[in-house]
């Protein structure tokens, strides 16, 4: 099957693997805790924005409540490991499944709506309900006081490497876990795009009425991608919980998370495999770098965002592709 995304399939896969290798080499150069912390957040948000890109960038369904699935995964995994004494290595998958289940349940009413603004507002309202419920279930979640005492990932012994320990002072292990999660999620996106499933999603994005008239089962495709994307968000939420070790309704379920996801995806390139990751690094590292500008920091940041969105509406990832396309035009896809 021929798709613009995979006319250069090796290209994308190659860049993905090369990036993962580069990330893996970082701790050999520096293990400075603050730098690693920034990189961990960038990769975490890159993966989270990639999971949202699956629904929005490829299936064309603009949801604004992705934080609900992230937060549910975070609280779910934290509470399961605390109350049931289970290893976070287990509870993170269970939390992902919980998020997927919630995603499937709410997708049924939401995906019947075809108007983009309505879907956005309904999913946002849903996420706000989840946040408010979380902050009021004080017996369970401690509400606005925050849930603390979350166990970090269980340490283990890796042959050849030795003890792999997870605590605040040992960010290296977390760094490698988040690289793995990021690679799994972006890799899954890559694989989905090349599959029949991804082809159907792209058809739905471009025209739902044409897609269904040509035999695409809209509800099945939209529900599946919604559930899968919620699953990925839930796992990332769980990682976040066992990394920061304290959760509040606004830090894990707040609308800020969604705004970050949208900004990163738009800046990096919506519907581009590596767009969300590029956006996540630019925003996370850029904000740190701008600290040098003191009080002008947020102003410069805002202006840069506006400029990028205005002059590169397809995102930073489109620059390179636009350049390469010049050499490939005229070729008939086979």
């Amino acid at each position, binding site marked *: *099957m*021929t*798709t*613009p995304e995979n006319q250069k399939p090796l290209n994308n896969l190659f860049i993905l693997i090369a990036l993962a290798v580069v990330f893996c080499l970082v701790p050999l150069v520096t293990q400075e805790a603050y730098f690693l912390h920034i990189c961990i957040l960038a990769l975490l948000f890159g993966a989270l924005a990639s999971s949202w890109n699956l629904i929005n960038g490829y299936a064309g369904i603009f949801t604004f409540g992705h934080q609900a699935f992230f937060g549910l995964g975070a609280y779910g995994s934290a509470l399961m490991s605390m109350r049931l004494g289970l290893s976070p290595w287990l509870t993170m998958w269970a939390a992902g499944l919980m998020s997927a289940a919630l995603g499937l349940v709410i997708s049924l009413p939401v995906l019947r709506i075809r108007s983009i603004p309505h879907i956005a507002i309904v999913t946002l309202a849903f996420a706000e309900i989840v946040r408010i419920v979380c902050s009021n279930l004080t017996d369970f979640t401690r509400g606005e006081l925050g849930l603390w005492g979350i166990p970090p990932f269980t340490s283990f012994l890796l042959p050849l490497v030795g003890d792999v320990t997870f605590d605040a002072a040992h960010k290296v292990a977390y760094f490698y876990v988040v690289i793995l999660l990021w690679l799994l999620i972006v890799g899954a996106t890559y694989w989905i795009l090349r599959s*029949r499933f991804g*082809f*159907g999603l*792209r*058809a739905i*994005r*471009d*025209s739902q*009425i*044409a*897609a*269904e*008239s*040509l*035999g*695409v*089962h*809209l509800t099945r495709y939209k529900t599946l991608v919604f559930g899968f994307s919620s699953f990925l968000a839930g796992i990332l939420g769980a990682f976040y919980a066992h990394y920061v070790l304290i959760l509040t309704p606004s830090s894990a379920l707040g609308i800020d998370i969604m705004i970050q996801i949208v900004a990163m995806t738009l800046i990096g390139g919506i*519907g581009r495999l590596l767009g969300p990751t590029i956006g996540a690094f630019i925003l996370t590292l850029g904000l740190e770098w701008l600290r040098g500008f003191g009080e002008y920091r947020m102003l410069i940041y805002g202006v840069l965002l506006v400029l990028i969105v205005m002059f590169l509406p397809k995102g930073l990832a489109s620059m390179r592709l636009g350049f390469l396309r010049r050499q490939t035009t*005229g*070729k*008939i*896809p*086979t």
Partner: protein
Amino acid sequence: MSMISNPLLETKNVGKTFGGVIALKDVSFSVSEGEILGLIGPNGAGKTTLFHVIAGKEQPTSGTIEFRGRGITALRPDQRCHLGVARTFQIPQPFSQMTVFENVMVALHFGAGVHARSLEDEATDILSRVGLNRWASEESVSLPLGARKKLELARALATRPTLLLLDEVMGGLRPNEITEIMETIRQVRASGVTIIMIEHVMRAVMGLADRIIVLHHGELIAEGSPAEITRNEAVIEAYLGGSAHVSA
């Protein structure tokens, strides 16, 4: 004649209202296998709505639709597509971020329900039948209107239909292109496909259709051969001074 043989498609007392607007009222007609049925009527008559109801994009407010003797009123559009009902859209709906070739591949993969390497040859073949092969690798967003109409036809053909609903596919085409597409439609019918065509280009519908039905204010007001329709008083009245169009 066509009423006696088993109809491929039959609508029974189909009605459709949008709020207060009556788009279709008590529409009953049938198409026989292998037939080309013309569907004409002034703008706003309800022709496109009738296609929506047959293909499942809209649910009728009343009445039923039968395909091969089986009620399909409750089926989704994709299910009707899999049964063999394909349609084009009057306002083209290309998958704009895909190439023309990929647009056809979507229909082959999901509509015809087959997935093999050989599909690529079939897609190429369909594109050349509608005269779009030189556009194959263009992103469909860059197509002019005429080519978009042809792409609608190509995708519908790629679902391997038994019943093809064509909603003004000639609109925006040049005279020589109209002649080409008329030839394509003849070939499609010769391959065993039944066709209902909504068309304002009278040369095309009069030249192709075996039988014509006329819709006016949501109601069927006439049925007959092209020659009969051009002489029908009610039809000429419906077009109100547009009789030149009908007899063209």
